[in-house]
């Protein structure tokens, strides 16, 4: 089962290596990992997507907790969290196809962020399914390059807080 772990860590050199090293040496697979500082510059948030059963997830979480630089771990419940990923897609778009591609991008509320004679670079954010749908539609034109940030996520605000 897929899990999104939101992990707060001290923003110090080597912390990413400690976390990724732990996953590899204990045989846990990371599907995606995104990391960056939070509102507090001393603390970073890692969003780690993993595929693991409950026992394995428990072991991963306990092992992560043992890293001295790890401050807090939450297993985000998909129902109670929001997740996004940002993807840049450089797709073939010769003049005769360009309008089609732009139209497709517009349907997805994606942005065109770069244009050349033969290509368009499209920026899309959203859930995995939305991104997958756009990717599938663009594939016939020829995707030249693609890059994704990996999933980032936050727990939804509690009703009392809003």
């Amino acid at each position, binding site marked *: 089962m897929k899990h999104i772990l939101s992990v707060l860590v001290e923003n110090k050199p080597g912390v990413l290596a400690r976390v990724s090293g732990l996953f590899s040496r204990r045989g846990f697979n990371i599907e995606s990992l995104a990391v960056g500082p939070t509102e507090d510059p001393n603390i970073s948030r890692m969003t780690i997507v993993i595929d693991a059963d409950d026992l394995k997830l428990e072991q991963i979480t306990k092992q992560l907790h043992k890293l*001295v630089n790890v401050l807090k771990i939450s297993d985000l419940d998909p129902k109670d969290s929001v997740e996004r990923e940002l993807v840049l897609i450089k797709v073939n778009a010769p003049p005769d196809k360009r309008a089609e591609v732009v139209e497709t991008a517009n349907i997805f509320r994606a942005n065109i962020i770069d244009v050349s004679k033969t290509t368009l670079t499209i920026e899309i954010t959203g859930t995995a399914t939305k991104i997958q749908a756009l990717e599938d539609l663009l594939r016939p034109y020829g995707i030249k390059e693609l890059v994704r940030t990996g999933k980032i996520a936050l727990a939804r605000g509690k009703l009392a807080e809003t």
Partner: protein
Amino acid sequence: MRMTGAEALIKSLEKEGVEVIFGYPGGVVLPIYDALYDNKKIRHVLVRHEQCAGHAADAYARATGKVGVCLVTSGPGATNLVTGIANAWMDSVPIVAITGQVATHVIGTDAFQEADITGITMPITKHNYLVKDVNQLPSTVKQAFLLAKTGRPGPVLIDLPVDISKAEIDFKYPEDASIPGYKPTYKGHMKQIKEAAKLLVQAEKPIIYAGGGIIKSEAWDELRQLAELVQIPVTTTLMGKGAFPDDHPLSLRMLGMHGTRYANYAIMDSDLIFAVGVRFDDRVTGKISTFAPHATIIHVDIDPAEISKNIPAHLPIVGDAKIVLKDLVAEIKKGKTPHSDKTRWHELIASWKKKYPLHYHQDGAIRPEYVVETINKLTKDMDVIVTTGVGQNQMWAAQFYSANKPRSFISSGGLGTMGFGLPAAIGAQIGRPDAVVIDIDGDGSIQMVSQELATVAANKLPIIIAILNNGYLGMVRQWQELFYKKRYSQVDLNVGTPDFVKLAEAYGIKGVRVTDIGDVSKILKKAIKDRKPILIDFMVAREENVFPMVAPGASIDEMLGGIPGASLSQMIDEEEEEVGSEAHLISSSGK
């Protein structure tokens, strides 16, 4: 006070109460060794290979309960230390390893003697530090010691670039360390403890499975109270030897691959396992899927990650063994739940003990077991520390030496590091100068570290080095005999092995060879009395095997050997019928 980073390091170590450093100098630690030169408070023990600085610090920590400290140079010094650190990591031993590093401005340029030691040791340290600002040095040392000795203990490494050692600092040692992401749980959950108390007194066939965690948290008295209060038999792991007296009537001695038959039968047949300070290692559980099929498992450990890692626990208790056991004993003493009748369980165990005692052939040859047994007899009631190599020598020591006190048996468990015995004896003897320290070693193991005879000689350490010399890598040979059709591939050490007596003499240490069984006791007795370094080369029966033995991948009640008066093949046949029927008998009567 104004001082250099190197001086601040030594001052910080003084503040932590460090009395001994095991180390080896080199280029980038010159400033530190210069700071040590005039120091009156800290003794430096010069080893002859950095790996042994790690092992000596490790055994010093195990023998004394203090933090062991080792100091080596960058690059090869640091990489040589890696095995020492890994060994301490696997056995959860508190050491602080200090490595020199090339200057900060050349880090990452493949400078002379540069190695990324924080990267290399990330998987084998509890935490490690690369100090890039001299002002952070005192607080780093403070944190390192706190991490090493609290919670689940373990090695912590501090990598110190040479320019930081030379930089100046206004020294002030912090009162306490703040580590926001580090909060070990010491007190067990009372609801769980109450439940455990109930299960323990109600169980009909309970067993305590105790390990190194008991010694680390100094919980041996509490463990004994629990066992005696509820009359529960206790088996210990290799790391747990000494946590409960081996000679106690409730003791089942060691369990697992080379454990006693009665310990393995008892845990497999038990209805309740109280596991404390253990990690269900594969050498203990054997085949996981068949392990203790009828037992409810209560698992107490300070490291939550150990609970349900290998075998799911029915009742987990995260906490420090000493505190949890104290609460548990108090809870049981309230007497809320009536105790079950455990007579039949004790009778069954007594019958196993009678039928399957640890034993060996006595035919006039020097059997290695006899040597260990003699050491055991001669040192009863003394303050003794036994250290071991790894392999057959280690298992015979574990089987035939009765550890009746904590911190009296020091062995490399998790990593199984050949060569641990001699540097461990050095660390133990320096930590406990009055103890009789005996290194029970193998001819293979000791050759990995024989240069440390120099350290023994230089420090006049009255260590007794007892080599069980069979001219083989004995444990590997045993596996080849049993599982590889006696194809003895690369295990015969007879050609090339030095004359150990001459080797000892070359270092100025007394050496004695024993070839006659009649001399074993006499020579050991004298060695114990003399209190001088001595190497005794016991020429033991070459193809002796360690029994009982659980074949790799087998269930731990499927043991080879260890039945008095039976040949190996007979033993295998008999075991299946007899044990099967006994176990059946009690489980049907119990229900």
